[in-house]
């Protein structure tokens, strides 16, 4: 395991979801930091460099996509993935932000772990 590898950020208000993501990410050799709100996530990015971010679409304070825009402002190259049960794969909103380049991928809930693993393999900055 490369000690210098940047950790992956997981933002989901559901602690169980964070537990799942943590377990999958750990298996890929990455480390993980979790936040249950957008504000917590923003403060984490201020003091940490992340290799990737998994965001839930619906967070208690602001929407996942709004959080993505905020993160993008301070970190132009951070790969962002939306993981959500609210949107669906060919949802016009999702298609729009994918085209725009705001997010690197979308994973709908529930998902196969392989899907998360492949997204990490493809997008995480090492």
């Amino acid at each position, binding site marked *: 395991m490369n000690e210098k590898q940047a950790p992956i950020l997981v933002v989901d208000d*559901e602690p*169980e*979801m964070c*537990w*799942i993501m943590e*377990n*999958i990410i750990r298996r890929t050799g990455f480390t993980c930091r979790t936040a249950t709100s957008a504000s917590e996530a923003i403060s984490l990015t201020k003091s940490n460099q992340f290799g990737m971010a998994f965001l839930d679409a*619906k967070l*208690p*304070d*602001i929407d996942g996509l709004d959080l993505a825009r905020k993160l993008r402002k301070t970190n132009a190259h951070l790969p962002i993935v939306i993981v*959500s*049960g*609210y949107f669906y794969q060919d949802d016009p909103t999702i298609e729009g932000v994918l085209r725009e380049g705001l997010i690197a991928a979308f994973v*709908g*809930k*529930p*998902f*196969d*772990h392989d899907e998360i693993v492949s997204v990490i393999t493809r997008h995480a900055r090492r």
Partner: protein
Amino acid sequence: MEDKTLKATGRDLSGRYEQLYAMLLDAIPSSVLLIDQNMCIVSANRNFLEKGRRTLANTIGYRLEEVFPTVILDQMDITKRIHQVIEKNQPAKGERMTYRAPGVPIRIYYYSILPFTWQGQVEGAVLLMDDVTEQVRLSEEVRQVERHLASIVESASDLVLSTDKKGRILTWNAAAERLSGYLAEEAREHHFTDFCTDEDRKDIRNIFSRIDTRKHAQMKECPLRTAKGTSIPVSWVFSPMKDSSNQTLGIVAVGRDLTEQRKLEMELHQSQKFAALGVMAGGIAHEIRNPLTICSSSAQFLMEEDGTPEFRLECVEKIHKGIQRTSAIIENLLKYSHPSTTTRTTLVNLASLIRETMTLVTYHAKILKIEMISSFPKEPVMVQGVATLLQQVFMNLFLNAINAMPDGGRLGIDVKTDRSEVRVQVTDTGCGISPREIGKIFDPFYTTSIVGQGTGLGLSLCYSIVKQHRGTIEAESVEGRGSVFTVTLPARFSGGEP
């Protein structure tokens, strides 16, 4: 001199009387003929001549059959009757006679024949004829109006009854027979309250006892018990029945069968529910997919072979919890979407009903970042009502409040109760309603929603449901600040009577 004067006075007097009687004869509205024993006309008054379009010259001295149409004389046997009167010196009872003179419309007469005696001898007969055409026509009209009124009452599809002041049935129309299964004769032996359910009797007695002190008709919805043992929903209007001196003689009750209307309302309520579910679908899907993801991922972890026994146990527990959570959401939805087939009221715990409804909208509120704050009294909040309908009232109010806050906000639900009533306030911090619009919000189909996003029936349904539960619903709003909807319902205690 004295004698002469007296004689002259006597002559004067008899002359005067003659003139007076002649005048009277001509003035009365009856036709009078004096007929001698040979059936010749001795005298005829002005009325007879005018009615028959005759003159004295072609009447006096003529025989009866020359003056009267033969048809009438034969048909009514007048000649024979006059003979009988003269022979027996006894008047003949009056009878009706129809007489048509040339060129005048048909007239109806009531005639009588009196013997005319002079110095003990029967000299002839007086034929007295009263024109009753107008009276006959009027009484025929009265009968026609009566028949018309009766047929209105009998043909009405509404129940039309009358009772005496105490509520004993006097009349019972065909619709009442058809709907109740009781014939008018059977109903007549009963009191109106015999056809009511036990819980309505007291109210009906109150209405009846105070009916003549009230200015307006009294209205009440109360089911009618039928001969089959079932009951049908009826909306009644009770009015006092007054005589010409404004004394109350009894009560008129007009009732409309609400069965069909209830069925339509039911369908409307059901489609409203589905519309509400549609609005909440996104939130519900999101809410179900979370526990599903936990189950799915835990199962995937279990499939890996290298998990520690503790980790595997954790996964199993999470699957179990996830399924319970999903199942609870589905149960709530099922309960809500299940069509309600009854309009029968029961004792409802309003606090738990409101809590359940809040759970249903939580998913929707959560994704819109709406905080829900509620407060309930410690004691149970009981009302008499139809639970599914009441739930719809609060569902509509909650969803409206949420819709008013697309950028998040606070949804307040405050339940208070005292001995007589329950008050539920639903407060939002949303866009508010303009003073121009607030007067129309309870109107059916009034909506400010974009086409396809609202039916405009939500609040009008709330209004009718709350009214049906003898409650009130009020709205207050400050544009740009938010709205408060207050529903007040009569409180009931589990003990029974309020």
